[in-house]
């Protein structure tokens, strides 16, 4: 791997570890039968357990366990015996005044995630825990410090989460974004979560620290609740520069939790780490350990879909090496199967991936049949369609599902075969003997200049139906003949 471009001043580096909270796509909450749903009347989805009423007890949701283990296996983790623990702290969004989470014995440990760029990011753990309720601050413009009072809705309290903790393996905000994008695609592919960052069903906290190359890493700060890839990248870059400024000025970085303000483009102090962080974890006595059998794990593995990394590998293998970016995009758009089938049907891989990358970023692209895409690319390769015509034809294929040959014919994209093109080019040369002489005898620079002139004439004569690439190649061939 080449060193990541960090955008930091010369001689500085940053390191990033990410904690991603992701809501599991279950019907009910983690420990009670209340619906796990968003947008209902406040406190509609509550019961004695998720309100922490005296005497209530938790009973684990089997589906949540299944989904959490699925995440673990998709991230190549060891799925192991795990124990729930109570994390004790006072805050009104926490109905029991402790959060049931996992501490020293999480369900998933020691995995990794391979990114499209080739970077492998270690997964420290992916554990199961419950979400908190939601606080609304009233008065003072909704800001916490100026509010006259706050209101608590426990509909979200007890919603199942997995918290996926990465190793500090990323060295730039681009890598962090790539990691989150890849993780998100896995969560979607496995059906574990709807992973909507904007709606909060996927929330990212970033731990950032910096150093001068050759020196140990500095104190890290945690930036909480980043809710888009854009915010994630900007917040990390801003935070790294803030820390460098402090260190450059001879100050020290305080260990603290910070928040990102998208509007001002800055991070600000949320909370300095202090003694309230003594969470007094201990094993949750109201729940018993989870002990998946080897058979359970085999069953989960068998039910996993083909993951993005494997899909990328399959497509790249069929398409040839220098197409990594386009391959990643094809998988991201879920068009890799289409591309792979079109290539298998004999279409030129580069042209297929070009269409997938540039011309199929549209609604309904998944409906295009591989046979139609292959036929279109083959017409293009044979010179029967120009690039521009192929793009317009493909748009029609997406919209109508019709056969590309029929569309091209209807649009009047008459086949300009190789013979017709040559006749046309010969005519243009004959009409401009002076320019042709200069082109024929000139150096590369002169040829380059006059190519534009001749192409203009060719397009004019063909009413735009000539294939520019083929015409240029023909000109050069004739000049050196």
């Amino acid at each position: 791997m080449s060193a990541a471009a960090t955008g930091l001043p010369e001689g500085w580096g940053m390191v990033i570890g990410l904690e991603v909270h992701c809501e599991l796509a279950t019907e009910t909450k983690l420990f009670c039968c209340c619906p796990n749903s968003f947008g209902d009347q406040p406190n509609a989805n509550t019961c004695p357990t998720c309100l922490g009423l005296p005497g209530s007890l938790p009973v684990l949701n089997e589906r949540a366990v299944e989904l959490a283990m699925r995440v673990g296996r998709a991230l190549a983790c060891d799925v192991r015996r795990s124990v729930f623990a109570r994390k004790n702290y006072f805050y009104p969004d926490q109905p029991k005044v402790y959060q049931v989470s996992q501490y020293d014995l999480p369900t998933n440990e020691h995995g990794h995630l391979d990114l499209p760029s080739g970077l492998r990011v270690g997964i420290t753990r992916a554990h199961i825990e419950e979400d908190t309720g939601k606080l609304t601050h009233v008065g003072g413009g909704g800001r916490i410090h100026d509010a006259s009072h706050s209101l608590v809705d426990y509909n979200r309290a007890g919603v199942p989460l997995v918290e996926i903790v990465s190793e500090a393996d990323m060295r730039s905000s681009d890598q962090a974004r790539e990691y989150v994008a890849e993780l998100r695609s896995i969560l979607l592919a496995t059906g574990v979560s709807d992973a909507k960052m904007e709606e909060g069903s996927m929330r990212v906290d970033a731990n950032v620290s910096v150093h001068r190359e050759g020196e140990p890493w500095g104190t890290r700060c945690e930036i909480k609740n980043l809710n888009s890839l854009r915010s994630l990248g900007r917040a990390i870059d801003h935070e790294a520069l803030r820390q460098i400024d402090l260190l450059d000025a001879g100050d020290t970085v305080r260990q603290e939790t910070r928040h990102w303000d998208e509007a001002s483009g800055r991070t600000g102090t949320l909370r300095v780490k202090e003694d309230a962080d003594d969470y007094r974890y201990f094993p949750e006595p109201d729940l018993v350990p989870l002990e998946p059998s080897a058979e359970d794990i085999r069953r989960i593995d068998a039910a996993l879909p083909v993951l993005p990394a494997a899909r990328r590998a399959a497509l790249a293998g069929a398409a040839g090496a220098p197409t990594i970016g386009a391959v990643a995009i094809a998988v991201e758009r879920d068009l890799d199967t289409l591309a792979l089938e079109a290539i298998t049907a004999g279409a030129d891989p580069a042209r297929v991936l070009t269409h997938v990358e540039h011309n199929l970023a549209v609604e309904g692209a998944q409906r295009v049949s591989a046979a139609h895409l292959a036929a279109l690319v083959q017409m293009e390769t044979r010179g029967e369609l120009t690039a521009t015509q192929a793009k317009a034809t493909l748009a029609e294929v997406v919209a109508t599902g019709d056969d590309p040959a029929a569309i091209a014919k209807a649009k009047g994209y008459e086949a300009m075969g190789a013979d017709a093109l040559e006749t046309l080019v010969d005519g243009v040369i004959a009409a401009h003997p002076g320019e042709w002489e200069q082109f024929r005898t000139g150096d590369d620079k002169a040829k380059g200049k006059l190519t534009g002139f001749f192409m203009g004439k060719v397009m004019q004569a063909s009413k735009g139906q000539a294939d520019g690439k083929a015409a240029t190649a023909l000109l050069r061939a004739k000049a050196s003949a």
Partner: protein
Amino acid sequence: MPAGDGSEAALLAARRPLARPYDGPRMASLSRDEVAHVARLARLQLSEEQLDTFTPQLAAILEHAADVEALDLADVPATSHPYPLKNVWRPDVPRDAGIREAVLDQAPDAEAGMFRVPPVLGEAP
């Protein structure tokens, strides 16, 4: 005479050959500041007087636990559940508990179907 009066010290001495006999609360290793810190963690507002009372009482109890603290149990597994069970769960089927109104009616303060609290200074730890 009520049975058992004055027998606690003797009882303790008999039970704990490793600990010295219990002869009532005393000032011990636990400091008043530590007690005040613990009270803050537990969100209890102890008066100066209560701190004075609690400190020696808690110290005495912890001192009594000193024999447990002194045991070498490195190879002994912990028991968190006396009756070992595993993989206890329920199906993912929703059910309406139907207690919303009853709970909100009894809330110390409610507004718009939510629990109302005074201003919350600071984010969750």
